[in-house]
């Protein structure tokens, strides 16, 4: 019996090729391009002004909240895919269970909406 993993070999090849290409193309520039380093040029670019301080600064907590919400709804979406494949077999019962699952999360969405975690204007 042929291994059930054979259909996945091309995927491995694709990922390898993608990685190799992404590494080889910039390596070409490193070979072909000129190189001249001086201290002024090596500063980070701030539109011509002298560089002030470091860029290793904290940024708004909103981005972090967005990332956390993203995880929650991504996990929700992940639960939808196996359900979608079995959708017809599960019938109205499956529809109801997923409606319950999703409405719990919609409650969460309404909560963050009301709390203003999705507001970016201020």
């Amino acid at each position: 019996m042929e291994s059930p993993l054979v259909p996945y070999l091309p995927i491995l090849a694709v990922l390898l090729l993608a990685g190799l290409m992404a590494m080889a193309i910039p390596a070409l520039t490193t070979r072909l391009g000129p190189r001249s380093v001086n201290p002024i040029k090596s500063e980070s670019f701030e539109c011509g002004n002298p560089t002030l301080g470091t860029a290793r600064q904290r940024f708004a907590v909103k981005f972090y909240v967005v990332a956390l919400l993203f995880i929650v709804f991504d996990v929700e979406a992940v639960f939808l895919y196996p359900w979608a494949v079995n959708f017809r077999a599960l019938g109205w019962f499956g529809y109801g269970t997923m409606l319950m699952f999703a409405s719990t999360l919609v409650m969460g969405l309404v909560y963050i909406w009301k709390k203003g975690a999705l507001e970016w204007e201020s």
Partner: protein
Amino acid sequence: MKMKKWIEVSLAIGFIIGALYGLMAAAYGLSGLLEGLLKDKFGVSGGAGFANLLVLMLGCVMVIATALTLAERKWSAMMQDRIGPNRATIDIGPLKGRALGGVPHIVTDVLKLLTKEDFQPATASKFLFNLGPILAFAPVFALFAIVPVGPTLEVAGQKVGLYVANPDFGLLYMLGIASLAVYGTSLAGWASNNKFALLGGVRASSQMISYEVALGLSLVGMMIAFGTVQLAGPTGMSEMQGHYLWKATVGGLDVGIPAWGFLLQPVGFILFFAAAFAETKRAPFDVPEGESEIIGYFVEYSGMKFGLFMIAEFVEVVVLSGVLTAIFFGGWTLPFGNEALASVGFFQDHPWVLGALFATIFWVKVILLCYLQLAIRWTFPRFRYDQIQTLGWKILLPMGLVNLFVTGALILWDPTLRSLAIAGGLEIALIAAVTLVPRGGAKDEHAEDHGHGGHGAHGATDAAAPALAAHH
């Protein structure tokens, strides 16, 4: 003069279609050969996948993406009433002094990027700085693997289809690999140790993850319609769309309404298109790279490292077109006459002739969708960042959920998908009515969803904020 131009354009289009047809015929031949070779020598199937990896991904996707760099410049020039790239010429014989539609610019662009200095700021984190462009390009390139380009047929005694891989988890591969592209932008932004780059990187990655939710959610409707997450194969979405919902035969030609995803899931299509467009970070979703303000997360990159970010964007445009074609526009099938074509005797004797024709149809659809994306890119003014987040979380996500459960109810009520198609037709009519009917009254009322056409870039800031507040 006008006549000459028409002839030239038709010749160019004919050449492109002919080249695609030849390439697809070669793809079938090579797949059949390699599949047979691997089976004989090693007893392993899957050779067709490797052949397609070369022809489809390196030969088609990369070449179309490269051509798009020129197309984008020409198209933007046309939109802005400029001439566009015409300086690079090949000075031999009769070609001397002719711009050739700007084609030599592709070569000069590549040469220029390759021979630039490979610069990195002294304060950058070296390893992560180099990792950024790799992680921006590699996942995007790998995405096309699951998209089926042509039908599965018998070539050289082997059953081959024009797709690289058809894993059981199909679209999950696409969503999973696409989610890795976030690291490219955020690493590029952080590792450069540049405030502008950091701001751009954080904006870009935050935008990408916000739209990834809607991206996955908008496809679930199509998944439940066909009960699969696979694109290729006899039960995959692409082939299932070739079946007719209503069918009639007129003089030997089969006509009817096919089960194209666009008809079944118009809302899903719009959500997916908007979300995927935001993932490409092109205008109107291009706040991570405003030339006039924060420059972009790749500000410190030069040469081909910058080039990778750029080419990744164009590859993403092609891949998105391919995925849209496979999921929503019937893959390689025509809206009518598929069965009539398949029953022609000559095609039954030489199935690859018809297969290459279908694959060419697929690529024509892809090129048309690329064109649509370029048009959108150069038509709409950009969103503000808060509008982008609002669109992602407050509009696309709830709409995706509602669409999902409405679709589910319709499918359970009528498993033949016909009710779903009728509902889809009504939705399309509604959307068309809302979009096409001219609106009276205050101009700045509709500031969010339709690109606030009346404002111009600077007027939007003041006018849109109260409109947004009023809307919610």
